[in-house]
């Protein structure tokens, strides 16, 4: 590693330590920290919940980073795919009631249907709209995904209206100690996120197709001369990215309210995460997601009016990472 590279990783690490220390410093300064057991338990609850939130973020981010890593396409419609996944889950959850059947469809079980559907949608989008423009100017695919995003919002609005929905899934608390609690649905979501992202990671590491995807990400031209049909890899990758987004959507639907317009904020969050973690790097996206989830909560908990500032966390991390080390924590160096 070059010297400047070594320096920049230390700088970034230093910056992150500073960023995490900042809410504590502000907390001390503004007297919002109480030095008792109860407060420490609250802090633990808050940090834990941030970690859980990070798991949901990870679902958005790994798909985005995968698509970017393989095709250098910034998928602006990613958040909309998340929302689509949320709606698919919601529809399947409510379907029995609409049909007058007395069956309980577990929202997580709906992924058996929603993930393949999202995969096919992503596959089709890549085949019909993006394959022709990948490798050209980067603006073109970006604008196409932007158009796809707007279309998705409008289609979903047209079908489901703009009403907010949510699924009341496992609403109770898990008490770790008398005073540290975490929502059951959050733990389940985190577990699902972990399971899904690890499966994808192992698939990329071990499976032959996964290796072909990684090879294409590293050098598409050489992948081609190895006999890999990169256009087919592109379609599979976008399909996989869309399925991961939809899985994130399922996790959103069982925790939060959503409507067709909710997608944009998830695109922004996912984007900030993959910049922090390193564009195109899978593990980087996971780490970035957890880091963002936790720091958002620390800010909200200790900084006065911190809940109004959580967006600064995402944007601030993103901008500072770009300034200090554009390739992020684990991203490959830009050629």
């Amino acid at each position, binding site marked *: 590693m070059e010297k400047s590279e070594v320096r920049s990783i230390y700088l970034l690490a230093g910056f992150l330590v500073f960023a995490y220390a900042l809410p504590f410093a502000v907390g001390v300064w503004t007297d919002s920290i109480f030095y008792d057991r109860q407060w420490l338990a609250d802090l633990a609850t808050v940090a834990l919940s941030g970690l859980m939130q990070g798991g949901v973020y990870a679902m958005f981010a790994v798909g985005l980073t995968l698509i970017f890593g393989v095709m250098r396409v910034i998928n602006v419609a990613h958040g909309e795919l998340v929302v689509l996944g949320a709606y698919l889950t919601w529809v399947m959850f409510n379907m029995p009631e609409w049909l007058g059947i007395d069956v309980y469809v577990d929202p997580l079980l709906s992924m058996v249907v929603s993930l393949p559907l999202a995969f096919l949608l992503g596959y089709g989008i890549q085949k019909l709209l993006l394959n022709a423009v990948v490798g050209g100017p980067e603006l073109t695919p*970006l604008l196409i995904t932007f158009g796809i995003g707007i279309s998705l919002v409008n289609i979903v609005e047209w079908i489901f209206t703009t009403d907010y*929905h949510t699924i009341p899934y496992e609403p109770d608390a898990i008490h770790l100690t008398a005073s540290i609690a975490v929502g059951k649905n959050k733990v389940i979501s985190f577990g699902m996120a972990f399971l899904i992202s690890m499966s994808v990671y192992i698939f990329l590491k071990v499976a032959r197709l996964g290796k072909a995807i990684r090879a294409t990400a590293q050098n598409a031209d050489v992948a081609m001369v190895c006999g890999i049909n990169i256009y087919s890899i592109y379609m599979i990758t976008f399909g996989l990215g869309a399925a991961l987004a939809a899985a994130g959507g399922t996790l959103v639907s069982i*925790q939060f309210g959503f409507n067709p*317009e909710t997608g944009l904020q998830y695109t922004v969050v996912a984007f900030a995460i993959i910049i922090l973690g390193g*564009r195109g790097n899978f593990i980087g996206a996971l780490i970035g997601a957890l880091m963002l989830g936790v720091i958002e909560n620390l800010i909200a908990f200790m900084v006065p009016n911190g809940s109004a500032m959580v967006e600064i966390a995402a944007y601030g991390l993103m901008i500072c990472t770009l300034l200090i080390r554009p390739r992020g924590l684990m991203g490959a160096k830009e050629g």
Partner: protein
Amino acid sequence: MIVKSMQVLITVLAVAGMLLPGTAWAEHRGDDTVLVGGALARTGRYAEPAGRFYNSITMYVDQLNARGGLLGHKVVLRLLDDKSDKQTSIKLFEKLITSDKVDIILGPYSSGITDAVANVTERYKMPFIAHGAASSVIWQRGRKYIFNIIDIAENYQKGAMHLAKEIGVKRIAIIGEDSLFPRMSRKGAEMWAKRLGIEVVLAENYATRKQGDYTALLQKAKSRRAQAIFSNSYFADASAQIRQMRELGINMMMFASTVGPGLPRFAKDLGPTAEYVLGFSQWEPVMALGHPGMGKFIADYKARYGGKPNYHAGQTWAMMQVVESTVIKTGSFDNVKMRDTFATIKVRTIIGTYKVNDIGINNHDGLTFQIQDGQRVIIWPPRLAQAKPRLPMPKWSDR
């Protein structure tokens, strides 16, 4: 390449709203017609309550035309989509007034957008009733062409605060979205708390687009030993907050939201978690309120849209009633004359009497309801209460 494309991305996201002009869905004006126009959120985060505005307006205009229109003219409606966006709304109102030359203006949804649009309407002297705005600050800027019809934001938590006092709450947290209307209802909540001798241990806003995790904020309220949470919130935030209180096992004596619990989906989607939540309503489809015309409106609305109207639908209907009465009394569509009528007329609407004071604020009394067994039940003011309040909220572990 990468840096460049990110700049592009940011630019693209920034201009996203502008790229999407509002769409018109009303036909053009014939010769002998009256053009009634406005912009409402058909998409965006206000689309859900504003959709009920849209329902009431279209139903009212259809009925109006069926009984002969306004002063013998057929009414043509032109409602544009402001995408829940202030800038878009300003442009659309400018266009409606200057190029479409509408005869009557209908207000948008949300205090923030109304406040911005009022600058345009004021300039062109176009009077309107701000049926979608409850922030009194809008009327404290010396404007002459805007009139209030619903209870002001400062009073949204008035009933809940009185009830909190009654059950012995001493310390509260006031939280809410960081936008104009929730800020105004926060200001009102702080004022009522002070007046009733309740200590505010936490008053904090959260980012407008944050619809996810409120754990930190709720824990903060808990760690400061708040006994009740007053949340100036809409659907997504209010529902996430009450869910997360349950997930975290945070027990409060009361959870009072403003707009969210009034939406029909709130109790339905949240199920038992929504029980005991307090909300504010300008009006409820409850015959006991005794306003003239309520029964017919409720029945017509139900027949046409399949569900009972909520207060958003009601207040918009009332606004249309005042507009019709004003035009009839004025006898013309002259905007300045209509303004004078709006300022002086007294109309009995389905939500109560419209009669504004010298700065244009109507003295409307809102209602505080509680979700009891999945239904919104009026619990304050006492003279209109349908049932006794079920307070304090039981502990989550005891439910």
